[in-house]
């Protein structure tokens, strides 16, 4: 079997179980084993999907949520990355900020929701702030860890061979820290969706979470289930993108080499 076929086969295998679950669920619903007011049949969810797509409501809400998720991720992720680099490279910077950051890290960021609503109301800033805060720590911690974990023997080799600070960073330190940074990235993507869902469910006037809460008010359980499924798909999409990036940039790593 060719490599491409094998990869396609592997990812197909991953979808077998979800497909089987949906089929079983549909059969159970039609047979009346699952009452429609508890869990609607997949076909009913599909219908809701079609209805909301036609009205444009679904696309608009997905767009709003994705934009929030990505902007929050960009803000929190870049600050976390920058601080992780700074604290990994400079003992002065680490001495000044690390203790503070480690203290803040231990506060569950969702515990700040009441405070955030008081500060920002239910405007965009509230969601951005929460997502950015949630994403910040996994990126920060793993970037710092990655840089501290770079083999000092390789750094010494770079110095002996006359690499300047810039070359040392881009050719030795950053590539060495990259596997750990990717762990942080994938972890942060999970937190990004989680935070956004919670924030939109509690305080929002648009977005997927808001759509789900509205549907609950009107007992549109098919829309509630649809929102949850879309979250799952978006989460999977983000993770797949991160994996792709990982494969592209870590081709040298024995774990990513074809055997």
């Amino acid at each position, binding site marked *: 079997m060719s490599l491409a076929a094998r990869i396609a086969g592997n990812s197909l295998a991953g979808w077998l179980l979800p497909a089987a679950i949906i089929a079983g669920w549909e059969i159970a619903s039609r047979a009346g084993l699952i009452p429609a007011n508890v869990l609607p049949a997949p076909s009913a969810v599909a219908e809701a999907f079609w209805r909301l797509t036609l009205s444009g409501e679904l696309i608009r809400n997905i767009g709003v949520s994705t934009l929030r998720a990505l902007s929050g991720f960009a803000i929190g992720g870049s600050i976390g990355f920058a601080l992780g680099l700074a604290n990994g490279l400079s003992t002065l910077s680490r001495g000044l900020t690390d203790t503070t950051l480690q203290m803040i890290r231990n506060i569950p960021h969702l515990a700040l929701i009441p405070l955030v609503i008081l500060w920002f109301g239910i405007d965009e800033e509230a969601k951005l702030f929460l997502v950015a805060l949630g994403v910040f720590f996994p990126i920060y911690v793993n970037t710092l860890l990655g840089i501290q974990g770079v083999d000092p023997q390789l750094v*010494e*080799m770079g110095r002996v*061979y*006359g*690499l300047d600070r810039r070359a040392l960073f881009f*050719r030795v330190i950053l590539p060495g820290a990259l596997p750990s940074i990717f762990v942080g990235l994938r972890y942060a993507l999970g937190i990004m969706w989680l935070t956004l869902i919670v924030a939109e469910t509690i305080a929002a006037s648009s977005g997927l979470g808001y759509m789900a809460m509205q549907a609950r008010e009107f007992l549109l359980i098919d829309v509630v289930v649809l929102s949850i499924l879309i979250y799952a798909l978006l989460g999977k999409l983000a993770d797949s993108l991160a994996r792709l990036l990982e494969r592209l940039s870590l*081709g*040298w790593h*024995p774990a990513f*080499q074809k055997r």
Partner: protein
Amino acid sequence: MPAATLTAARSLVATPARPIGSVEGRRAFAFKEVGKRFGDKIVLDGIDLDVRAGQFVAVIGKSGCGKSTLLRLLAGLDRPSSGSLTLGAGEEGHSRTRFMFQEPRLLPWMSVVRNVEIGLTGIAGGTEARQRALAMLAEVGLADRADEWPSVLSGGQKQRVALARALVGQPQILALDEPLGALDALTRIEMQQLLERIWLNQRFTAVLVTHDVGEAVALADRVVVIGEGRIALDLDVPVARPRRHGSAELARIEGAILDHLFGRG
């Protein structure tokens, strides 16, 4: 003692292609009264060592005798606590001192040839660097592995890439810190022969730190034994090259050094 062999050795160690200023030849480097302390611990104490350009010197001694420290001082990785270290005049287009570590220390995220190009940092770049790196790889017999990741190479191959990286900049001095220590016996002999062949071609000054007396006498023109931070023995090895492993002459010199090391001389 080696006084007699000292003069005899000079004629055997030719330094062609380089003008010889005096009978002693051009100086590669000289240690004068060099001492090194780490805190209270005296590692090196009054080392005097004068090495001519193109000479192959082996430094041996028991573990912790300061031989690696001597090498790190030579490569500028550490500064002497006392005394002075002078290096001979540099030449255009050559890197002055290159260091070969005990471990290959290749960057796993760069292809083999790009790792060799690291040795040309500040000397050549772009296509020229690639050409020179490929030529050097061919010299160590790894031309066909140029575009592979280091992780797929064997230990001996990795150390050959490290040797190519060290030599691609045509250094005047090559400092080797037990680079063959982790290799199996056969690969080791192969590497020794490779090292000798390249040294005969390029005629850089080689300083090899090793704990293997057999390796030292097989490769070096001159063997320096360090004991308790001082030079305990400075012996020339006047044997013609290419040398045959296990010859009676080498074995005799090896025996003399071992006797000295264990105080049986």
